């Protein structure tokens, strides 16, 4: 019975993203180093314990207090090794933080206890997300209540979804299949049931999935409707009557603020400018915009941002 159990026992998770093999390579390196030192220490202890076990007529030698050369050696070697680990781990992490520019976009809102996903074309999913193999996907995430964490073990990626701000995560699936999606940040009663699936499809299958049962408003369209409904266009317009900055082509570009600082109009900036307009005033404009805190839902915000980004597409 035991052997059959062991043979069916997985030791490593499936490797289904470009990041997975990079993380695993470092993992195996660390296992190698750890095993070497663990075995070394264990062997020394056992050998010493047997070799020097209570001897008759033992007299303590006037042993040195220590040996500087030895101390320096066993300080320097681990130090060198951990610095290799640091640089290696940091390079992986930096890559995890840099989504490729051509990544597909999708938006994720965590809520106790479900994952709400919306694709750029407006398609919504709950507790599952379809992605194409071989194409980078960038998720922009937030939460409606408490902190959640989007975790796909097969991709070796994880990122908290934090209420009140955006975080991002990207991956590129390498193998078609259905993979676990876990909430990894404790969020209450059904935390362990806040799970789902990441379904990676071959490009052709993904295209077929996209083609099926569409017809929903795209995110940008929905955002445009909200934009009209809230009367944003009365100030953010292209003519001389504009009391707010023009939005076309804004997303992703640097913005000059009062006081001379320059920020990049990323998602976080756009979100802040809607919810807390006084925080960053664009040079040449008055701080007259009211807050829209409480008037727009988290999904509505994501749609508004998608709309602002689509304005950029028109200009280009």
């Amino acid at each position, binding site marked *: 019975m035991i052997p059959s159990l062991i043979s069916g026992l997985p030791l490593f998770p499936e490797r289904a993203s470009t990041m997975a093999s990079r993380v695993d390579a470092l993992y195996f390196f660390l296992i190698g180093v750890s095993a070497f030192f663990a075995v070394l220490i264990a062997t020394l202890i056992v050998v010493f314990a047997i070799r020097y076990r209570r*001897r008759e007529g033992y007299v303590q030698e006037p042993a040195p207090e220590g040996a500087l050369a030895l101390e320096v050696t066993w300080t320097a070697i681990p130090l060198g090794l951990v610095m290799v680990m640091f640089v290696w781990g940091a390079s992986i992490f930096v890559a995890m933080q840099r989504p490729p520019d051509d990544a597909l976009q999708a938006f994720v809102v965590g809520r106790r206890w479900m994952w709400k996903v919306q694709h750029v074309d407006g398609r919504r999913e709950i507790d599952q997300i379809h992605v194409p193999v071989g194409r980078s996907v960038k998720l922009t995430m937030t939460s409606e209540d408490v902190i959640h964490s989007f975790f796909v073990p097969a991709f070796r990626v994880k990122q908290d979804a934090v209420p009140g701000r955006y975080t991002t995560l990207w991956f590129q699936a390498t193998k078609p299949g259905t993979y676990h999606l876990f909430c990894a940040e404790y969020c209450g009663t059904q935390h362990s049931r806040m799970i789902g699936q990441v379904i990676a499809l071959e490009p052709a299958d993904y295209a077929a999935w996209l083609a099926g049962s569409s017809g929903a408003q795209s995110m940008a369209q929905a955002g445009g409707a909200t934009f009209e409904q809230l009367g944003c266009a009365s100030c953010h317009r292209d003519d001389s009557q504009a009391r707010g900055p023009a939005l076309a082509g804004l997303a992703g570009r640097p913005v000059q603020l009062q006081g001379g600082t320059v920020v990049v109009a990323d998602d976080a900036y756009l979100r802040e400018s809607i919810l*807390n307009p*006084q925080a960053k005033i664009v040079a040449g404009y008055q701080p007259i915009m009211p807050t829209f805190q409480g008037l727009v839902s988290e999904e509505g915000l994501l749609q508004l941002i998608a709309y602002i980004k689509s304005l950029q597409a028109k200009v280009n």
Partner: protein
Amino acid sequence: MPETSTTAGAGTVARPGSPGARAHAVAHQFEDAEQQYEAANLGMWVFLVTEVLFFGGMFTVYVVYRSMFPAAFAAGSHELDFVLGTVNTAVLITSSLTMALAVHAARAGGRGAQVAWLAATMALGAVFLGIKLTEYAHKFAEHLVPGPSFRFAGPDAPQAELFFSLYFVLTGFHAVHMVIGLGLLGVLTTLAWRGRFGPSYFTPVEVSGLYWHFVDLIWIFLYPLLYLIDRHH
């Protein structure tokens, strides 16, 4: 039993000094009054280190939020009573002076002076708390207490609520420290009245003084951080 015959590298010897070196006020664990004094003094300083970090947690929250919402903090600060805050600073500084003089008197041994300066310190502490309560009452009346009844005009209302949360938490914990200090001073005054302190024994007055000055120190920083943001507007 191990085969090696061992004894530690230590021996014992009677400590030099006459039996009279251990005065009546020295607790049994100390060798002499000097050691006892130094232990108490160091103990209070170490305690004050923990107090710095205790308030430090709140200061960290303050620094982070002020960096995020400078305008809201300025708007919130404008709602505080500049005059009362300044007067209270002066009151607390004066109480630090009287406390220092009380320690001085305890060292000199004059009973009347000790009691007088301690009582003056308590009176000033009470004045400070009285003024603070008045300010709190105004804030209640103006709906500036964070929570469901909070009302604040202007675009920064949510972040101004954060400012007032910090205002009440910081000044509230400071006031709690003041109350504890008043309690300590009350005990000291009684003991001083009974003539317990003099040149050979004044440690309690001295370490309580350290505590009182520390509470003053915290206020010295709270005053500009809470009351003086963007005053010139």
